[in-house]
């Protein structure tokens, strides 16, 4: 019998999707609301906490004050504009550094794990999972010991750059095991025949890698790059432990504003501005990369 009208399967799936979506929304509503309060408050003269609108007006003042390093609207500033610039710069440095190291290493080793047969390959893959499962905080003691020993062998003028370098490498190390898995998965999806085809067409190994393999795993590279960037951007504990107190990132800057009762003296919308800036990569990622990654996972590698 012909079914006229809407396809039965489609209706059912549509409804299931709607239910799922509603559930996800309900579950994430508190988070979304908190984020919304944060972002809106950063543009308001006071914290926006509900329907109470009296005396509320919107302004860019918080952002200006934040970039000047001020913590209240009136008092003299503790931090200078240069401090804030440095902190934002440090945040970028750590995030880009982690992202760069993780992306480069996981792309190369993902390729080896996917394409090369070597002794103990599967054992090593399992070991990577285990590594990933270890909490980074537990590792920090050993990592710190190593840090202190290596730092002391350097001239003091290099200590600050070295501390940033150390944060990048240590934080990247935490991200690498999982990223290798992700990259291996993407390389696995590139059929051998496609590579061979290019070889037969006359390409060198390098050309095959550049023209064929890389474009096909681009979504994987983007995924790994973005996630490790955010890991570096958001990291608190490694930055806190290794960077000297004079060198902050957005994460440790915000943490310091909230620590030790200083909440009562700071103008909260300024902290909200800092928090919003701290959230920015996540928001941007949500707006742009999501579509891209979704597409790539759907159309991916076919035929």
């Amino acid at each position: 019998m012909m079914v006229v009208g809407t396809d039965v399967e489609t209706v059912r799936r549509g409804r299931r999707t709607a239910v799922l979506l509603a559930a996800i929304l309900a579950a994430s509503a508190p988070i979304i609301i908190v984020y919304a309060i944060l972002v809106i408050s950063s543009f308001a003269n006071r914290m926006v906490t509900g329907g109470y609108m009296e005396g509320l007006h919107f302004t860019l003042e918080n952002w200006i004050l934040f970039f000047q390093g001020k913590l209240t609207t009136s008092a003299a500033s503790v931090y200078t504009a240069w401090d804030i610039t440095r902190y934002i710069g440090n945040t970028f440095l750590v995030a880009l550094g982690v992202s760069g190291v993780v992306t480069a290493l996981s792309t190369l080793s993902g390729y080896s794990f996917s394409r090369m047969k070597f002794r103990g390959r599967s054992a090593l893959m399992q070991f990577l999972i285990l590594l990933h499962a270890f909490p980074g905080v537990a590792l920090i003691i050993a990592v710190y010991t190593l840090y202190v020993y290596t730092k002391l062998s350097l001239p003091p003028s290099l200590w600050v750059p070295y501390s940033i370098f150390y944060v990048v490498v240590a934080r990247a190390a935490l991200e690498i095991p999982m990223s290798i898995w992700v990259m291996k998965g993407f390389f696995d999806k590139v059929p051998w025949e496609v590579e061979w085809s290019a070889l037969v067409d006359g390409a060198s190994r390098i050309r095959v890698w550049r023209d064929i393999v890389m474009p096909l795993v681009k979504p994987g590279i983007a995924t790994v790059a973005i996630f490790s960037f955010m890991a570096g951007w958001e990291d608190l504990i490694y930055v806190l432990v290794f960077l000297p107190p004079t060198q902050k990132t957005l994460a440790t800057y915000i943490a310091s504003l909230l620590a030790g009762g200083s909440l009562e003296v700071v103008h909260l919308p300024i902290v909200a501005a800092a928090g919003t800036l701290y959230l920015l990569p996540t928001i941007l990622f949500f707006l742009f990369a999501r579509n891209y990654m979704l597409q790539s996972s759907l159309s991916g590698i076919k035929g």
Partner: protein
Amino acid sequence: MVEIKLQDVTKKFGKVIAVNNVTLTIEEGGFYVFLGPSGSGKSTLLYLLAGIYKPTSGKIFFDGEDVTEKPPAERNVGLVFQSYALYPHMTVYDNIAYPLKLRGAPKEVMDRKVKEVAEFLHIDKLLERYPHQLSGGQQQRVALARALVKEPKVLLLDEPLSNLDALLRIYIRAELKRIQQDLKITTIYVTHDQAEALAMADKIVVINKGVIQQIGDPDEIYYNPKNVFVATFIGNPPSNTLRVKVVEGPCLSLGEWRTCFSGARAEKLRPYVGREVTVTFRPEDVKFSEVAEGEGVTIPAEVYEVEPLGRESIVTLSLGPEIFVKAVQPLQASKKLKLGKKVYISLLESSVKVYDPETETNLDYL
């Protein structure tokens, strides 16, 4: 266009011997079909010719030149993979142009050649599309275009039709053969489909378990199989196989039935007196009658099953417990056959092939 020679080529993957000591000459401009069941080493042979795999031992020559150690890029072969292996992130145009781009061909030359081969294969309307926007048949053409655009010395096709539906397969089969004849390009076509092999080949190379079983033109392969494997792999339905006793005469004996040989074949059969041998015969060579006739080989049988196939029927006959023989009958004749009916089947002595029980080699080839 080249003549290709393989000399004692062996390829092992660990303990698996995928290609075992293959020696073979592929004549210039010929259409060769490598025919064998799945896992017989056909693809491995093609990859060895393309340079994707290096032989574990043995040598490969193109026109007398040793290319064994040459990488794929230096062999100028066109290879169509079973999965087509199109570049998913490139348009049809870029897919076809890629080999030319790698050679550094100027833009105009590239344009002209891509258009030419696309028109030749009727895909000139698809040049802007991506592979995933194409049907299986179209993808297959693109893969063929990409292989042909570089004017290769030899065209290698790995089961190019196996992913297409049955109708399209028969249509493209004829077209591929036509293209090969037009271009006169040395072609090796790999398939597990014996009908495809018979329909297309100048020469068929039958392969099983990495070993060449027989090389010959389709007639030879069909009518004079070199061993039991070839006889039973080729034909639809394939040859019937029976184990029979050889008795003094020499005669073949199965139950009450007895057939005696004379002349040269008798001499070849004589050493087997007292032992069992394998015999094969084609279903279409089996004749029926309701009474026992004196001529040729006559065996009493019972109709077990009749499968009408349109023009003809396949009749399964029981010669005894667990001994079945298939016969092909015209549809009209087969309609009179009731299940369980007693008949006599007869065979010309010449259509019965006899094989050594150990080596399974056709005695005619000994």
